[in-house]
């Protein structure tokens, strides 16, 4: 069953359109990356999924029902929106205990999830003193309390060091491998490329792409051959289909072998002949450049 289904989801705040006519599905057993530049509407969409904000139009269902109709929602959906949105005066243990009790989750789960995220030693410490990385781990522990089939993380790697990033990435992959639906937002394509199986890309609240990661790269940008030569002008004339840049030539319609054969026959020396596979980041920039909220 589809874990999350958004249908024509729309949200306006006064005159700001945060999410516009957005439809997508999140399936179990894979990591779905939710991508978009700052202000694209990712967090707003997640809040609507979780019944926190009311859609202006359209609907979003979790496992076929609106979130607000779930009896013990944490046993079905675990979410981390803002790791710092906690009462700093409580201990990690009490914080999680209160959440567990509200959904009739056995108190024993508290220490289990603290162990999972590596916070067992600081269970009795005030969470106000936690670093950002520890807070993220605590937020993830809270999301895992009810052993949910669906997990939702809003920019979980923000502010983490490389170790923390690697940990979360591996962790999300593991959750998906266990058959859970993982829905995770980011504004960095490079991050998602290494974590996600599927991508939902939005810009200015609208859907831009809903594809697998591989498909996304293939579709949205082209590979090209970069050619350098001390006699670049002559090479450009010979190749015809290239686009001349100050210090190199870009060719999309020919392979390196074809170009090499051509220039060899003409006796033109080459400095460089490289097939350039555009990065995922470049593909993403290309795709979202029209929908940047704040372009620099």
């Amino acid at each position: 069953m589809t874990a999350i289904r958004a249908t024509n989801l729309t949200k306006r705040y006064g005159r700001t359109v945060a999410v516009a006519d957005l439809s997508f599905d999140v399936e179990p057993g894979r990591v779905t990356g939710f991508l978009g530049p700052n202000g694209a509407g990712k967090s707003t969409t997640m809040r609507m999924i979780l019944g926190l904000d009311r859609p202006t139009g359209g609907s979003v269902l979790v496992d076929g029902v609106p979130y607000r109709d779930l009896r013990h929602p944490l046993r079905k959906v675990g979410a981390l929106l803002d790791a710092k949105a906690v009462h700093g005066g409580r201990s990690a243990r009490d914080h999680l205990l209160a959440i567990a009790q509200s959904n009739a989750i056995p108190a024993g789960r508290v220490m289990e999830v603290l162990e999972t995220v590596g916070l067992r030693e600081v269970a009795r410490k005030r969470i106000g003193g936690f670093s950002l990385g520890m807070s993220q781990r605590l937020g993830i522990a809270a999301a895992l309390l009810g052993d949910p089939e669906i997990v939702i993380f809003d920019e979980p790697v923000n502010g983490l060091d490389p170790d923390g990033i690697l940990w979360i990435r591996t962790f999300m992959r593991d959750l998906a491998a266990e058959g859970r639906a993982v829905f995770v937002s980011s504004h960095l394509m490079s991050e998602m490329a290494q974590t996600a199986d599927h991508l939902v890309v939005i810009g200015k609240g609208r859907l831009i792409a809903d594809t697998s990661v591989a498909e996304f790269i293939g579709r949205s940008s082209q590979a090209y051959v970069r050619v350098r030569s001390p006699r670049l002008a002559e090479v450009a004339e010979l190749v015809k289909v290239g686009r001349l840049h100050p210090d190199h030539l870009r060719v999309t319609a020919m392979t390196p072998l074809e170009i090499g054969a051509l220039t060899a026959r003409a006796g033109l020396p080459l400095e460089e002949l490289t097939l350039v596979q555009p990065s995922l980041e470049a593909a993403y920039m290309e795709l979202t450049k029209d929908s940047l909220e704040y372009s620099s």
Partner: protein
Amino acid sequence: MIDIIRSEWTKLRSVRSTMWTLGTAALLMLAIGALMSIAVKNSHEGPVPPSGVAEVSLMGVNFAALAVAALGALVVTSEYRTGAIRVSYMAVPRRLLLLAGKLVVFAAVALAVCMAAAFAAFLVGRTILGGASLGDPGVLRAVTGTGLYLTACGLFGLALGALVRHTPGAVVAAIGLILVLPQLTVMLPGQWGRTVNDWFTSNAGRQVAFPSEASSLGPWSGFAVYLGWIAVTLAAACVLTARRDA
């Protein structure tokens, strides 16, 4: 519902500042009662009547009322300030059930502490002034009434907190409605003005502890009117809570 109550109790007891504030309110109540009792003893000729002993020893009630109201407001507003309210609503999407859970837990804790503080304040006052017991006419009602009135003030604060979702706003509203405005309504002219004054929030609510002969409301009808104010505030808060984005 029992799950939510259990969870809210964990939240309330696990924040040390909550318990401290409540304890401070109780101590303040005792201290003011004791000071007033000493002052009265030194200036008063002859024995103080039992109802007077009760009134003097419970004079800290106004300060305590504000402390308890502020704490009631914080039960709700502190979650909005930190953003933790979203975590709470994710766990309990039926928001009115969550609010009910907060209300039940806070009411129980506030009632226990406020009752204890009222009794303790009276016992201290009686020790200083002498000549009164809980069996004297009106004394027991004054003491238990003080506990009830304080608890109601806490609920008023909680309702205001749920309505404005913002600590300073809720506390200012509580001070205005419980302490300031009730003193200003005295100046309203005519019969109509007198009725408004009698029915105005704490003017009505305090009747249960210190009934004024001048009021058109009795001890219990006055307290019922005060609960009415709280109920209306709470109803407005419920409507908005269900509708608003978190």
